[in-house]
């Protein structure tokens, strides 16, 4: 990439987006940051400055520790599977000379669907004993009744999360694949590269920015998973599927503990920013650069 000459007007293009971001996101978040230092009773309307008490209280609690671990587990369960599966699916669909549209739709459906209704269907699939999951996977692995197991409830939520996100990632990768320069694939073909090498040496680098995007977004989705937990397990059984986001909602809204909720928000923000930074630092920027032209 060559050095671009600074353009005075270019900055203007950032203005609408960033002004709106400032109003719709940044300002509210700043409010939240301030609230984390107060014991704020939203109903009474009272706010006492408590400095870092909220932090000490929340961060040392068992439920926070558990939610943190659960969030990490959820991340590990969903992100790699989502990315791998959707990459395979996208490549498969992309390679088809006919019928690709059908599969594109099939894999897209979960994205479009209403989670509330789909959660019902998923719960029935996971239904202990006679549900499809227990009748198939359960038979093979000898596990059953995921949603009521303290060890399997979170994986069950992860399955639903993956199911929803695969469609998203497939759409992203398909969009990315349409920009892979065909000449390079041709050149690689003549260079004797097999399908795998062509993927690895041409498609993958060209997809770099799309992969980085999908990685960061699926990671974010995993770290702030809420809906899936709420509709599938409500954090249970025994908090075994409570994630940080769920805890945030529970504390900040249900329990009216605004200060505690703000602390969790900040932790969540820091966590996602940290993970994103790590991802960018380790592979992200490299992959991105490979596809930057």
């Amino acid at each position, binding site marked *: *990439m*060559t050095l671009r000459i600074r353009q005075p007007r270019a900055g203007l293009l950032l203005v609408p987006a960033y002004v709106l971001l400032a109003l719709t996101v940044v300002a509210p978040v700043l409010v939240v940051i301030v609230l984390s230092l107060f014991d704020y009773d939203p109903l009474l309307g009272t706010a006492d400055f408590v400095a870092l008490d909220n932090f000490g209280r929340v961060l040392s609690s068992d439920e926070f520790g558990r939610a943190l671990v659960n969030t990490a587990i959820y991340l590990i369960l969903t992100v790699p599977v989502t990315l791998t599966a959707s990459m395979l699916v996208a490549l498969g669909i992309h390679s088809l000379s006919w019928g690709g549209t059908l599969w594109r739709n099939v894999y897209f459906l979960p994205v479009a669907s209403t989670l509330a209704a789909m959660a019902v269907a998923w719960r029935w699939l996971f239904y202990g004993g006679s549900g499809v999951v227990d009748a198939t996977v359960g038979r093979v692995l000898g596990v059953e009744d995921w949603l009521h197991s303290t060890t399997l409830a979170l994986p069950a939520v992860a399955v639903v999360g993956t199911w929803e996100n695969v469609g998203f990632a497939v759409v992203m990768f398909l969009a990315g694949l349409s920009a892979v*320069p065909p*000449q*390079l694939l*041709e*050149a*690689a*073909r*003549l*260079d*004797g*590269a*097999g399908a795998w*090498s062509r993927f690895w*040496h*041409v498609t993958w*680098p*060209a997809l*770099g920015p799309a992969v980085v995007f999908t990685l960061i977004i699926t990671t974010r989705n995993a770290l702030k998973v809420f809906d899936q937990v709420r509709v599938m397990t409500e954090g249970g059984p025994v908090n075994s599927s409570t994630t940080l986001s769920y805890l945030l909602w529970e504390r900040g809204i249900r329990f009216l503990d605004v200060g505690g909720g703000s602390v969790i928000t900040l932790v969540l923000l820091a966590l996602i920013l940290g993970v994103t930074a790590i991802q960018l630092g380790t592979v992200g920027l490299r992959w991105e*650069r*490979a*596809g930057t*032209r």
Partner: protein
Amino acid sequence: MTATSPALSSSVRTETASTPGVTCRNLVKRFPDGTVALDDVDIECPPGGITVLLGPSGCGKTTLLRCVAGLEQPTAGAVLIGGRDVTRVDAGLRGVAMVFQNHALYPDKTAGGNLAFPLKMAGVPKRERVRRVAATAELLHIDGLLERRPSQLSGGQRQRVGIGRALVREPDVLLMDEPFSSLDAELRVEMRAEFLALQRRLGMTTLYVTHDQIEALSLADQLVVLRDGRIEQCAGAEELFRRPATSFVATFLGGMNLLTGTHRDGRLSIPGRPDGLTLPPSLSAPDGVVTVGVRPEDLRPGPGRDDDLSLELTPVLTELLGRERLVHGTFGGLRVKVRLHADIAVGERLIVHASAADLHLFGFDGTRLQEAA
């Protein structure tokens, strides 16, 4: 003389039993939008030889190479490599390497990575790979640039990386699409010589597209002139240059002047010059519309002898070409180019002549009529 002209001679070429020839049979390529890029093309490329494809822009040269490479599926016809019909064989399995007209380098790999890639794919061990990449890079004078990415290279440097990527594999069949078009004359001459030596040593069957007449003539074991997707003439370089089969080939290779008129009794009447032109008697032209062709360099100043063709031109533009001068003149409604030594002064009128032996005669349909004496 230790090496002869590159005309095909088995003593020079290391033609091993394994070197396969390339044959195109009745190749037709019609693009989805209806464009017919190749129209019944038959070519027989001798094993281990260089077949040069020439033709105007858009005539189908690249398309032909792509069909041979397997990157484009012909609409009809067959491609044979080493006698085997490979029309349905995957591009990667044809043992063909190609230098792309637009280079098609891997943007995320360094120049060195680009060169090493085909070797990696062929499973060449690391050490050997490094050696061969270094050798190829040296050959192409890009040895200092191996760490750069394509975006950090100049046009000519990119082109050389593209060439290197095809050569480094030492393929059986090599397709080169205007490989030296972005190189300076000096380097081009050198590269051409290096390439020729390499090709003679390794004996890969080569299909070579170029717009450079010198390159075409000096490399070709066989020269194919394409026009609108059809073969206009296919012959050895010397033959094609000396006896162009059509007026198209004649203009295309060497930019021959064509004097078209109606012939009757040794006189050619030309539009705008009703007095016409006296043809040398030895040129037994038939009556009717004929075309007399003569190359700019075969026109010499002065009125010439009796059996010569003599013309009086009105110069309209002169261009300096180093030691020589290209004079563009008109003869009636025709444009005639003359190549003269730079020191010769050009006045208001320029009388030039050409010996009958240097004249080419074409019929009304453009096909060659007679044999220059």
